[in-house]
């Protein structure tokens, strides 16, 4: 029994490493600067982490199937580029729908490349990353552009006293949680991530499900583009550069496995907030901006390492023994 207890404890620790880290960070930043632990700053962190959170939620769908989508940052840039250049005169809602459409088209291309042409997800989405960024650079002429006035107003607008950003974040989260945990589609995503062969044997249409997963990821990237664009107000050629890694890090920090089948969107939200807390905290304690990437990288490394450890650990537990040791 002690062996089983030790295993349980270990898996518990492995599960909550990010949470422990979060507590330590909040505590130390609060010690260093009283401004950090203010209500206003907390709300600020949530608003600032919204776009990574939305991006990460889309990424969670993909990671749950043991896939990856590197093109989400590029979709964000392209979406905002379209807003700034071609969709200027349109009503806001129509512009938003078109941007979402662009994101879904990119997701569909990813999905088709992966399920029909059997291109590895890493390569397929790397290709669409460069296509997306290339198109956006072409559209903007590599210039710094300001987004149209209605989008900026949207960024400042509030509903029931809460920023529209938080609403968008909340709605995406609620819908995603519901889809993943309460619908056939969602449970099948988990099954595919655990074992695609068994899933196919159980009669799940694996290709179609994977296709939809990438479309969802593309759609959420487009929503993240609108959210981020409405906050920042302008886009430079570096806009949303490497955001795919922040999104993956948010998902993995939140307990979603890169190996598929384990995790969920609630954790991702937590992961996104954790990343933003670090950045926010570093700003507030006046850290040298050049150390930000190193700190973020260390956190990502830690998250991925914990994920690997946890996966190895669970694999060992699930292994079929030849002999059954111990008393029967």
């Amino acid at each position, binding site marked *: 029994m002690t062996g089983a207890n030790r295993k349980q404890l270990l898996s518990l620790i492995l599960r909550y490493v990010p949470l422990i880290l979060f507590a330590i960070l909040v505590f130390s930043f609060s010690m260093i600067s009283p401004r950090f632990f203010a209500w206003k700053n907390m709300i600020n962190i949530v608003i600032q982490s919204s776009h990574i959170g939305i991006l990460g939620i889309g990424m969670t769908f993909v990671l749950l199937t043991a896939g990856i989508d590197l093109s989400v940052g590029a979709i964000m840039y392209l979406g905002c580029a379209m807003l700034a250049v071609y969709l200027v005169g349109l009503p806001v809602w129509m512009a938003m729908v078109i941007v979402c459409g662009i994101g879904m088209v990119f997701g569909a291309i990813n999905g088709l490349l992966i399920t029909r042409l059997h291109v590895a997800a890493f390569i397929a989405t790397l290709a669409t990353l460069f296509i997306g960024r290339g198109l956006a650079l072409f559209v903007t002429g590599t210039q710094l552009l300001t987004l149209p006035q209605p989008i900026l107003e949207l960024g400042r607008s509030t509903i029931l006293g809460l920023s529209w950003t938080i609403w968008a974040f909340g709605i995406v989260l609620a819908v995603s949680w519901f889809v993943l945990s*309460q619908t*056939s589609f969602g449970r099948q995503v988990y099954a595919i991530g655990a074992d695609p062969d068994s899933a196919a044997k*159980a009669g799940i249409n694996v290709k179609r499900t994977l296709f939809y997963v990438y479309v969802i990821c593309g759609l959420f990237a487009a929503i993240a583009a609108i959210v981020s664009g409405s906050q920042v107000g302008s886009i430079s050629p570096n806009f949303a550069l490497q955001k795919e890694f922040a999104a993956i890090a948010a998902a993995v920090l939140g307990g979603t496995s890169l190996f598929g089948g384990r995790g969920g969107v609630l954790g991702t939200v937590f992961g996104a907030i954790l990343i933003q807390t670090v950045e926010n905290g570093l700003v507030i304690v006046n850290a040298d901006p050049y150390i930000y990437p190193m700190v973020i990288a260390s956190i990502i490394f830690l998250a991925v390492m914990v994920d690997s450890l946890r996966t190895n650990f669970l694999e060992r537990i*699930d292994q079929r023994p030849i*002999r059954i040791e111990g008393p029967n």
Partner: protein
Amino acid sequence: MALLQLENISKSFFGVEVLHGINLTLEKNTIVGLIGENGSGKSTTMNILGGVHQPDSGRMLIEGVPYAPASPRDALASGVSFIHQELNLFPNLSIEENLFIRGFPHLHWMLPVIDRKRIRARTKQLLDLVDLQVLPGTLVSRLSQGERQLVEIAKALSTDARIIIFDEPTTSLTRREIDRLFAIIDRLKTQQIGIIYISHILRDVLALADNISVLRDGSVVGAGHKSEYNIDRMISLMVGRSIKQLFPKRNAGSAGEPLLKVEGLTQPGVIRDVNFNIAKGEIMGLAGLMGAGRSETARIIFGLDPHKSGTIEVAGQKLENANPHAAMRAGIAFLTEDRRAEGLLMNAPIYDSEALPNLDTHSHPRTGWIDNSALASEAEKYSKRVQLNTTSIGSVLARNLSGGNQQKVVLAKWLMRNPRLFILDEPTRGVDIGAKAEIYRIINALVDEGCAVLMISSEMEELIGMCDRIAVMSNGEITGSFSRADFNQERILEAAMRPSRQEGGA
């Protein structure tokens, strides 16, 4: 009318007939025990029944109605359910989700939201049927192997199965879980269900089944009520064939200093206290059923898997840090069970596969440059020596070779290293008779030069024909050891099916 009837089912793979007119009858409310050695045709028969393969001739009837499943889905729809040795559960989903993953009931036809209440209630019922008292929402990863087996049965019941096939369901269960499983199977058979129970554990089959069918070499060699059988009769029916004259004569191995000395080799959950020696010029066979720990022992000796205690000595030198590199330097070669995945670079020219384990011996000690011309001529030489039948080792891809020729490539790549100990894991699996005889000749020539051989095989007559000694494994332990003078198929098989020391008389 019989629930299920197989009439004259035949099946060939690649021109070789593996099933010769199988007949099998299953009545309602009965259990048929199906036994036979590895490769006797049990799996092929069951795969035909389960819709994985289609028969070449013959027909199947369920309650008199012709049954010809084109896929596992068809089989399932016809009420034929399989419980495989490898479970098909998703550990990251709950029990109820696993039971309904094929098609969740929805709250409303327009809204694809899972009707949790309904699946929970139905799962509760099914779990009661298999006597598993856990909440339907429990994650499968939290269940023991035995409990997962029960969930698998509940899944079979959820599809309204009329025929349930159990394929070695007890291999990873404890004795208590086995007893519980048998009680449930016994209860199931009273509910208008027919059960086919496949197992190597003959006493279980005898205890559980009403009728017993014995397969050998793709034919049914015995079928009848269990009262006509005892374990001796079952074994003699399973093995009763004459040994083919495939095996060349050879001088008996010298009983000199042991070249390989394995003492107390133990890895929890895998093998326990394995001891044996192999002398220079000796072939030792390792017999046992699938999953008895034979390949695992080989992998541990070659340093692919860890061991917790015990020692491995080659020519008096202890192999300290177990890894394949050290094993190779000590003169060990290892022909693995699965040559396609582990022995060959399938999509590369033959030469690449042959060169790979010999790069270190053909490269400059300081710069690491490879002496390509020496390596190539060496590869040519050994390819000839194993009588590899191909036009060019530099251009023909490994995957385009026949099974026998592929195996010769694996032999050649290791022979280039002049091994002192050659571990052969199923060296003639999937190889035609002609190539088999050639592989036996190569092994004998090797042994005559003083190489020691550890040979794992599921073909009993191959072991009896080739080996100087045979050790038998069961449940990760050595349960018997025979020298050439007292080789006896039935006694070897009996040792392979003997429960290990730890299980005692249970």
